[in-house]
């Protein structure tokens, strides 16, 4: 038998205070960043605006693109060189009629090299649709979370649902914070990745809970703390292996999946790591704390 981890008996719960401090610090840093930025940084999907990925036939400098855009009143446009010297991503803030906006930008681009350009991607979202999309996606995340709590309450007990919920919120907050710290935009696909994280993180958490439930039945005389610790150790191999295979494919997606998918793959990568961590260091301790609290109440 080839095993990554042999006969381990790590006292995971003994490190719950340290873990709590680390998680708290990371979340706090993220929240501070979000507050300082005046809220999460949304992409045009939610904020409205126009994004154009343009490929010029000749190599062009960011300055000349900026100049052309300034001439038509888009001096505040964000222009990013896209890999090579001739490809750029132009991001323009919303205006009332996106159509006219697109047309004037086209004209400006044509003026740079006398027409030698190709628009590889153009996305423009009106402020109205952006708002609606934001509402839709937020309710999607909330509904998914509510559904999951209900499911776990039925299949397990309410305290497990609380553990899972805290872990999920933890994961989403950390990922959100990290996006803010790195100045990365939250787009539709990034939000989709968040929802995936919700599902995946839970997958991990449930595997642990399942073991806890089973062990709690078989080892009635052991303390709940040692039962949880035992379960965490028993499932550790599986947790590590599954996370590794999934992480492998997600990293491949991040590095070889192309520019378009990069933010999405990044959100998945962060979510995977945080989700694996949280099922061990957040979900399980919360369940233990809840259980101890209940017992205290009973004894009083």
């Amino acid at each position, binding site marked *: 038998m080839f095993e990554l981890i042999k006969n381990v008996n790590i006292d995971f719960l003994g490190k719950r205070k340290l873990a709590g401090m680390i998680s708290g610090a990371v979340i706090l840093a993220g929240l501070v960043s979000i507050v300082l930025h005046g809220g999460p940084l949304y992409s045009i999907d939610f904020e409205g605006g126009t994004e154009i990925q343009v490929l010029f036939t000749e190599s062009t400098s960011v300055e000349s693109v900026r100049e052309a855009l300034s001439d038509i009143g888009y001096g505040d446009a964000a222009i990013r060189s896209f890999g090579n010297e001739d490809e750029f991503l132009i991001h323009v803030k919303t205006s009332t009629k996106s159509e006219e906006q697109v047309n004037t930008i086209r004209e400006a681009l044509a003026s740079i090299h006398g027409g030698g350009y190709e628009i590889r991607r153009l996305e423009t979202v009106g402020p109205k649709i952006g708002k609606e999309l934001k509402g839709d996606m937020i309710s999607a995340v909330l509904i998914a979370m509510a559904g999951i709590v209900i499911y776990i309450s039925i299949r397990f007990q309410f305290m497990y649902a609380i553990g899972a919920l805290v872990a999920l919120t933890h994961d989403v907050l950390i990922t959100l914070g990290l996006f803010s710290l790195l100045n990365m935009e939250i787009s539709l696909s990034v939000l989709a990745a968040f929802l995936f994280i919700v599902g995946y993180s*839970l997958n991990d958490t449930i595997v642990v809970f399942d073991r806890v439930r089973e062990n709690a039945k078989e080892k009635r005389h052991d303390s709940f703390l040692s039962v949880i610790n035992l379960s965490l150790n028993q499932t550790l191999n599986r947790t590590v*292996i*599954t996370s590794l295979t999934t992480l492998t494919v997600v990293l491949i997606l991040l590095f070889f*999946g192309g520019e378009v998918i990069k933010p999405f793959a990044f959100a998945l990568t962060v979510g995977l790591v945080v989700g694996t961590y949280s099922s061990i260091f957040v979900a399980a301790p919360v369940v233990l704390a809840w259980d101890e609290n209940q017992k205290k109440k009973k004894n009083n």
Partner: protein
Amino acid sequence: MSGTLRMRVFLVVLLISSAAYMLKDTISYYTMDETQKEDLIESGEMDEIRKNIIHQGLDLQGGMHVVLEVDLEELIKTRVEDGDAEIEALISSSLEEAQNNETEFFPTFAKNVDATNIRLARYFPIYEKGPNSDVMDALEADAKDAVDRAEEIIRNRVDQFGVSEPTIQRQGAWRIVVELAGISNQAQARELIQATALLEFVLVHEDPQLLDEVIRNIDKAWAADMGEETPEDSIDIVAEADTTVDEVAPSLADVLSGDEGDSLSITGTGDVGRPFSSLINVGSNTIWVPEENVRSIKRKLEKPMIAAAVSSDSKLAWGVSPRDITGDGRMHRALYLMKGTAELTGDVVTDARESLGGFSGAEFVVHLSMNDEGSREWTKITAGNVGKRIAIVMDGNVHMAGVIRDKIADGRTQIEGMNDLQDAKKLAVVLRAGALPAPMIIEEERTIGASLGADSVAAGTQATVFGFILVVIFMAIYYKGAGLIADIALVLNLGFTLAVLSTLNATLTLPGIAGLILTVGMAVDANVLIFERIREELRNAKTVKKSIDDGFNRALTTIVDANLTTILAAGVLWQFGSGTVKGFATTLFWGILCSMVTAIFITRTIFMVMTERKTMTKLSI
């Protein structure tokens, strides 16, 4: 082999073979070259194939996704007469308020109007006089009609977009979503979506000899065109092309209902000398083309050489709705030979409404009214052409060709012969579309160039293959023999997922590919759970067979619980997500579902077959 095991093996074989069958079309579609595709399109088989394949999303094959919304501001302001600052401010502030609060405009507007003493009828004399609520209703109906008209204009232009399967959908009351896959000219497509429609009234030629001549000329030009491609055939073709087509006089039924009930002369098929006439049916001055030949004929007629075969003062135009004229269920499209210039254009139309009428009062009709200038012209046209057909043509497509029964003096025309209220309604919308502008704005546009799409496909495929291979190797090293079994399950899982997506005719997007990659990573989870459990049981010194049984049984609930939550999340995502995100939800959902089947059922069956005969003392795990 025990009975249950035999049953399991049978089921596994059945699953695999049906998956292979479901994948057949997808595989052949994506491996064939362009000429093979062309052939299948010409023969009409492509439609059938395309029903059973995985489609590429707009972000992969390149294309355009446009959401149009009625421009209420523009629409309402053009309806206002003698407007003043007060009404204009009221409209603007209501629009703004509705947008900021994400509420509907009309209730907001109504609320704001109620707060003032404004009498709306004063500003909107085009609607019937009445209390504010009536005017408001009329205005709302007007705005809804603009969306109807815009949708009809876009549908009518479907062919001009030059894409195989454009989708045009209504989203709520005020929006139209247009998706054009593989579009090459974005600017042109954007214009086509938004331009106003050209409605024309054109007389249809009622001259059998002229039609006969045109058909023969096309035959000749077509044969010559084919001759250019295969010169050795040319002599034969020209010689044989001189065949007359039987002509049948218009039947009485024409008078009442346009083209319904045509008598037909059906010519032979597959005749090389008459490449055009062998593909069509000709009856009472109209050419009827069987649906399966429409595409190839359209293409040929677009060639300048063949188009020139129609004399300059005439033109051919297609009818929009297919009809079963032979009565055997085969649908035909009409091809009309009509005058080269229009008698009248649609801007004279003031209104068109569907209703019940006709002789019996129970027929579906459309009432058409025109302005004074139009009425005068219309009187002249109808008086001089009684008994002839006049076609209602929008942007080159014939929506109706009705027989003029009488001189129409007052511009109020009743059009009869509609099959149902739906038909009548559609024609009324078409007539209005030609006259009234339908102001729409692009609220959202997502355009991906074909080159970027191709890059994404390449990168996505590479990532999937790479990730897949790495996971397969890892499993084989870590779990040895059992790992190989898991690898078989992994291959099957990918195959099953793609098979389900093919059958569902699903669209694969870039996030969808990511979902597929994720399933590869996560699919092993179920196997890992089982194998780790089997290892534990083996450590407890159980026999191999007992360990396998217990391992599978105890891991089962965990697998179901854990995967169901991810499936739940995917389901929610599917429900709320839009466009490309939906593609992610779809692949994730089916991928995980399939992984449960392969991991729980198929790997277990393989283990069962292995341990069936001999008592194993060692398990490679």
